[in-house]
């Protein structure tokens, strides 16, 4: 029994160790995520109005939604 636990433990070690090594979006994969239709919103019209008001008030456009076309360079 103990042996089995050891073997299972050893076998699952690489999975645990490498578990989070490949998560997240790579900088060169941001193009699709930055597209309008990739926004996590339920109501596109309301959200675009909100965005419009937001960037008019903030004097900045883009940056809302996921990537905002961000390159990750700054």
């Amino acid at each position, binding site marked *: 029994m103990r042996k089995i636990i050891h073997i299972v433990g050893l076998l699952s070690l690489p999975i645990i160790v490498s578990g989070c090594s490949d998560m997240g979006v790579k900088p060169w994969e941001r193009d699709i995520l930055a597209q309008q239709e990739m926004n996590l919103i339920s109501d596109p019209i309301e959200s675009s109005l909100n965005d419009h008001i937001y960037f008019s008030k903030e004097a900045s456009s883009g940056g809302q939604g996921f990537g905002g076309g961000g*390159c990750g*360079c700054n």
Partner: protein
Amino acid sequence: MTKHPKCILLAALTGYLLLSSSLWASDLTPSSTAKAAPHQAVMLPKYQTNQKVSLQMEKGKVILVDFWASWCGPCRESFPWMTNIQAKYKGQGLKVIAINLDQEKQQALDFLKEFKPGFTVLFDTQAQLPEDFGVIGMPTSFLLDRQGKIRATHVGFHQNNINEYEAAIAELLAEKGE
């Protein structure tokens, strides 16, 4: 009396900073510690001709490998500069290779129509190269010496660093190949 050690420390630190080579010489990685560029044999299709080429084929030249995408603002800015330096240093053996990472090739093609590149553009639609090169932002440029080693890297493109980029290129071009 108690201030003395502080003074000495300060003087030593200042001296060290002034003498440290990284402040004065360009920040090229010395040839002895520089790593060879990965995937030099990978063949990628060229813009316009679709002919497949690899980095290996340009060995003996100083290569600026630039990873870019059409959706990235600074990449847009870097295009005219890359065209300029390619023209300026072509005779001395500089090769600018811009590797496109767009997942939708058509967007890249539209971009290229607008920003006519005066240098080699390759398509890496499957993103085979950036991971191992260590691209951490867009654009990222790698400067390879005549032996194919990565001697300098810069992330992003900043107009006020243009002189540094160019100095590094000039320095590598002037290096005598072993």
